[in-house]
Every structure is written in structure tokens, then in C-alpha cells.
């Protein structure tokens, strides 16, 4: 039953994440933290960080991670299978259509209207992660974490101006946060 739920959840994630990369993020969040309580929001944020630091698509990385936590190795296999199944069917069909009629203008029109919606959904999921990063679990303004806020602003500036690899920014953010924490403790002592 659990395996079937995993299969169905990740089938939906595979089916409705259009545009690659971060497009899958809001869907994964909805499935694993809202529809099913498979992960806490912190664990979801962790898997986003891990997915960014390791090779492979975010959707496959999350499928494996969630699958193992929920139902061990069979869970990981079932979730991953569910995630790639819609691709296998639809891509093969569309490739067939493409080689037959070479016309994709209607598909292009559809994607044109999907793109802004996908951006909006990524923004919304990103905002949730931002609140968790800066204000913690409570999301309360009083719980503002100055170190996190500083790292966020510096990271964003660096990304906009110098276009470094996101992996470097994330590794740097992690190291900087730990360094700031220990520095603050040393000053208190």
C-alpha cells in the first residue's frame, strides 16, 4: 500500500513537472510534506541542498531519498520508477509525432503559457525555503537569524554579479555559517 502511494505520488511529480530543474521542487514539496507527511519541512530543505550538491536530477534524488526513508530500498526503486515512467511514455510518443509531422507550434504555445506559471510556483516554494532559512521553523519575524540573512544577501549578490557555480555558493554558505557560529561562541566565552 505504501509502495503504491509512493509510486502514485512520484508518478504525479514526474508527470506535472515541466521545464526541468527547479520545476519539480514545488510538486515534490506538495506531495511529500503536504499530501503525505513523509518529510518535515527541514528534511525537505535538506534534500534540496543535497540534491544541489550531488549529480542527477532533483526529482530522481528526492525520489530515492523519500523512498528509502518511507520504505527502504524497494521504496527508492518504486519511487524512482514512478518518477521516470511518465517521461518514458510521453517523450517516446512526442518523438514519434515529431519525426512524423515536424510541427510543434501548438506544443510551443502551450509551453509559453506554462512557463510563467512554473516560475510562479518555483518562486512560491523558494519563498517557503527562504522563510525557513531566515526565520526558522516558527516563521516568526522575532526569530530572524542574522547570520543566515547575511549569507543569503551575500550569496544572492555573488550569484547575480559573478555567476559562480551554485555548488560553490552553497558550500561557501555552509562553511561561512559554521564559522560565524563558532566565532560568535568564541567571543561570548
Amino acid at each position, binding site marked *: 500500500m505504501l509502495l503504491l502511494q509512493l509510486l502514485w505520488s512520484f508518478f*504525479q511529480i*514526474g508527470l*506535472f513537472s*515541466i*521545464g*526541468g530543474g*527547479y520545476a519539480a*521542487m*514545488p510538486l515534490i514539496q*506538495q506531495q511529500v510534506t503536504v499530501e503525505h507527511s513523509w518529510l518535515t519541512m527541514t528534511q525537505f530543505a*535538506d534534500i534540496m*541542498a*543535497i540534491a*544541489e*550538491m*550531488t*549529480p*542527477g*536530477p*532533483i*526529482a*530522481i*534524488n528526492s525520489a*530515492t531519498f523519500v523512498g*528509502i526513508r518511507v520504505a527502504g530500498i524497494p521504496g*527508492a526503486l518504486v519511487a524512482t520508477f514512478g518518477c521516470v515512467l511518465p*517521461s*518514458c511514455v510521453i*517523450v517516446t510518443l512526442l518523438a514519434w509525432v*515529431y519525426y512524423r509531422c515536424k510541427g510543434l*507550434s*501548438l506544443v510551443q*504555445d502551450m509551453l*509559453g*503559457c*506554462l512557463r*510563467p*506559471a512554473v*516560475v*510562479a510556483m518555483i*518562486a512560491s516554494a*523558494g519563498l517557503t*525555503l*527562504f522563510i525557513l*532559512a*531566515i526565520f526558522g521553523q516558527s516563521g516568526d519575524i522575532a526569530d530572524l537569524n542574522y*547570520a543566515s*540573512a547575511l*549569507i*543569503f544577501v551575500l*550569496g*544572492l549578490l555573488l550569484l547575480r554579479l559573478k555567476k559562480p*557555480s551554485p555548488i560553490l*555558493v*552553497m*558550500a561557501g*554558505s*555552509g562553511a561561512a*555559517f*559554521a564559522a560565524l557560529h563558532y566565532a560568535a561562541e568564541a567571543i561570548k566565552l
Partner: protein
Amino acid sequence: MKKKLQRYLTLFWATFQLSACTFGGGFVIIPLMRRKFVEGLGWIEEQEMLDLAAIAQSCPGAIAVNAAILVGYRACGLAGAAIAVFGTVLPPLIIISVISFFYAAFRENELVSLVMQGMLAGVAAVICDVVVSLCGALVKERSALHLAILPAAFVLVRFLDVNIVFIILGCAGIGLAEGLLRSRLERRRA
């Protein structure tokens, strides 16, 4: 027969390597695939690779998986598609399995937990950067319809808790209607 097996193995190994070495998602894997399958192996033509990339990006699912299906299908038919998907999925499956087994112990370590907390701020910055870039690209399209969809979808998903699936289906419907309407207008004008 032996030659066919050799080709399957080459395909598997190529997709496995590409997937294992691709950090940062689907848009990175397409140029790497081009180098391997167009320049390296010569299985696919230059223009065709561009078309395959467009299909991979228009279909649901991870771009890397979609591109692997297309390349595998082109190289060795349906069996090739299956082999290419397997080769692409295997590296993240192995890596994340290993990580998740250590995750609980790993997460309780104070240093790790601090680093993860800092990385969360980094992820937020990366996503914010991605959203700004995507919005910039949308503005350049100069389509009032697309610009109107962005805030509407944001309000629906953020404040009205509408299921993402309905928003995607709705926008696909709007796009389809727009395309049909325009082709009808063009036909009438002609």
C-alpha cells in the same frame, strides 16, 4: 549480435558517466550529451541534437532523463531508451541511497547541522537567483498574457492553496486556446 551488445554497453556507459558527472541539472547535460553523441560517437547529427533538446525540455519530467530517452531511442530503439534511462538514473540512485543511510547520524552532528543550516540560506539565494533570471527572460518575451499569468499563478498557489496540478492543467489549456485562436485568425487573414 556482438556488435549490438557492444553498442548497448557503450550507450549505458556513456549515459552513466554523463549522469554521474552532471551537477546542476538538465540544462548542463545537453551540451555534454552533444559533445559525447555528436562529436565523440557520431551517432546523432548536429541539427537533430538541437531538436532532441527542444523535445526534452517540452516534455514533463527531468530534462536529463528525457534527453537520455531520446538519445537512447535514436541510437538503439526502444531497448536503447530503456538502457539510457537505466544508465542515467543509476548514479543518483546509488549516491542518494548511501547518503540517506548515513543521514540520521550525519544530521545529529553539530558541525554538519550548522553547515546544513548555512546551506539552506545558500539554497534560498540560488533559487532567488533562478527566479530573477526566469522573470527577466519572461519580460523579454513581451507577451501580456504570459506576464499576467505569473502573478495570477503566484496568488493561486501561495495564498489560495490551489493544487499545483490544476494550475498546470489550466495554463496548458490557456496556451492551447491561444494557439488555436491565433492559427484560426491567421487562416482568416490569408
